[in-house]
């Protein structure tokens, strides 16, 4: 064996104390954010709640997407596939067998991870990278959409309705309209998703995955099994995204092919992450917090414009056009996303 020295015990203890600072800091921030966010519904108007919930769903998806595309370096343009698998698994198990959505969520996550690993394995095996990888994942999402349209047991284009229950039920994840549980549950799910991200990023497989993202050749030369550690973040990513899909179904009580597998689902996962900062823990959250309410805020502003902008009232499409302009500007002028750019500035 080599003559590399073995660490002295006291140094080891010292390092142990120092080591998880990054992770520990992130966990503390997460706890703080969750606590603050938990009280948010008490200060915002009730009408903002649906927007807040949709934003939380975006955030979970973006955190999921970020695991694969940010930390894993594989740009997925078809995360709708994994969202949809989660959504449909939950809907189908519930309506066909009366399975609790909580179990449906877990089964969906598992299934989605499996599907994701298979797709990513094929793409990597055939050495697709960059735009080609993105287009291949996109094509798979489209194929899922088309297959669902032709699946009798998934109700084809009609989609699946989650039956309304006579009363609230924790086990069936159904509450009254406007119940704050519909806010707190995705908040907790988001918390779990971020916690998974943090743990993964600082774990051995997570470190390997990031090394591979930075330089696969160098990583391989250091003994890392490249395929294996590429597929781990893919699996996690798909599972997290599927959870968002399952919750979506429960909250909206409906899932159809377009809601599950449409192109906009994939972009809903990507845009917050890119806006916030790819490959960072907090980027997807910040991006979702900006993008989620943006279109609602712009629309609200135009519904009740200040006098000098009165002429804009009722112009349909204007709210989305403004949203589009903001999106373009953020992407063009904040190359690393909001959080990524701030972090970079701070480092300098």
């Amino acid at each position: 064996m080599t003559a590399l020295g073995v660490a002295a015990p006291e140094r080891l203890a010292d390092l142990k104390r120092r080591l998880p600072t990054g992770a520990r800091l992130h966990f503390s921030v997460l706890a703080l954010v969750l606590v603050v966010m938990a009280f948010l519904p008490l200060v915002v108007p009730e009408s903002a709640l649906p927007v807040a919930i949709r934003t939380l769903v975006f955030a979970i998806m973006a955190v999921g997407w970020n695991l694969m595309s940010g930390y894993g370096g594989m740009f997925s343009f078809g995360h709708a596939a994994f969202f949809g698998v989660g959504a449909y698994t939950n809907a189908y198990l519930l309506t066909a067998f009366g399975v609790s959505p909580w179990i449906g969520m877990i089964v969906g996550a598992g299934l989605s991870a499996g599907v994701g690993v298979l797709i990513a394995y094929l793409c990597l095996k055939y050495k697709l990278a960059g735009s080609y990888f993105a287009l291949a994942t996109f094509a798979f999402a489209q194929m899922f959409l088309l297959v669902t349209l032709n699946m009798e047991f998934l109700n084809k284009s009609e989609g699946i309705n989650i039956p309304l229950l006579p009363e609230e039920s924790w086990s069936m994840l159904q509450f009254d309209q406007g119940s704050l549980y519909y806010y707190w549950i995705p908040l907790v799910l988001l918390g779990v998703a971020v916690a998974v991200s943090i743990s993964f990023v600082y774990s051995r497989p997570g470190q390997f995955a990031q090394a591979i993202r930075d330089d696969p050749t160098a990583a391989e030369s250091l003994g890392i099994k490249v395929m294996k550690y590429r597929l781990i973040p893919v699996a996690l990513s798909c599972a997290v995204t599927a959870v968002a899909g399952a919750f979506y179904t429960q909250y909206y009580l409906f899932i159809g092919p377009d809601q599950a597998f449409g192109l906009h689902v994939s972009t809903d996962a990507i845009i917050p992450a890119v806006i916030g900062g790819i490959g960072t823990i907090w980027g997807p959250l910040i991006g979702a917090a900006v993008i989620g309410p943006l279109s609602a805020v712009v629309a609200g502003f135009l519904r009740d414009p200040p006098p000098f902008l009165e002429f804009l009232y009722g112009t349909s499409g204007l709210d989305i056009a403004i949203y589009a302009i903001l999106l373009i500007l953020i992407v063009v002028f904040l190359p690393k996303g909001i959080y990524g750019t701030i972090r970079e500035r701070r480092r300098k």
Partner: protein
Amino acid sequence: MLTTERGRIVLGLFAITVLGIAAVYLFGGKDSNLVTQTVVTGLLLGGVYVLVSLGLTLIFGVLGIVNFAQGAMLAMAMYLVYFMVSSAGINPYLAVVLSAPIMFGFGWLVQSTLMNRLITDVGHSRPLLVTLGLSLLISNTLLMIFGGRPLNVPSPYAGSVQILGAIADVPRIIAFVGAVIVAGGLIVILRKSPLGLAIRAVAANGTGASLVGVNVKRIYAMTFGLGAASVGVAGGLLAPFTSLVPSAGDQFTTLAFVIVVLGGLGSVPGALVGGIFIGLLQTVGSLFLPGSGPLLLVFGMFVLVLFLRPQGLFGANK
């Protein structure tokens, strides 16, 4: 050697297509007039796809931009033609000639003000998101100006003719011919003109091009402009047989990507062959598969091509 490989591919694809159609005639259990009509329809639909894909293959092939605004730009061109026809009463095919330079200017502007800022980026997520934003912006601006009610551009040459016992719509034939002309025009521009040579040089080796004195970003802007101008022609030729709504182009965006990857990035002949092939595949497929079945066939083939020949039929071997 590559030329012969390309030749083999064209020949192979042609043989597969002919054999496939022959098989449908012989064993498809369909009326032969129906099959003939389907093939003619498929060819004409292929012409439409070619038109939509030509601009994209330039933009994707040379600039590497996954342009998700392709459909929206198509709609923009259609409305441009609509506007000229309805306000000035000019012949729509004359309007096409006018819309092309306007779209060129638009494309040039997009590339030089937005995209050129992103070109140094290693990732491709940002150009993609910008085009996504652009697509939203264009279609909602169209909505604000023209409203969402379907509009139409009357073709001065409405009617149909018989081809081999099949009926073909005249505006669609014009579009098909237009597709071949635009493809031919692009090939001539790329092969014979100094600009085309510079575009190909930039695509082949950007550093090399800058070392012979090419302002690469300017060529990028010209390329996006040229791509947009092709879209301009496409929109104009499609307008007479399309109901104009702001989202009219959206259904073509994904198919255009399939065609461009199938044909090979940046390959105009590839887009030509790929577009016609997909048009045939879809229409002949619809004889046997209901609803979205043919589309599933198309995407299935797309994934196979990505896996087995990612450089596309006409792409150079890397």
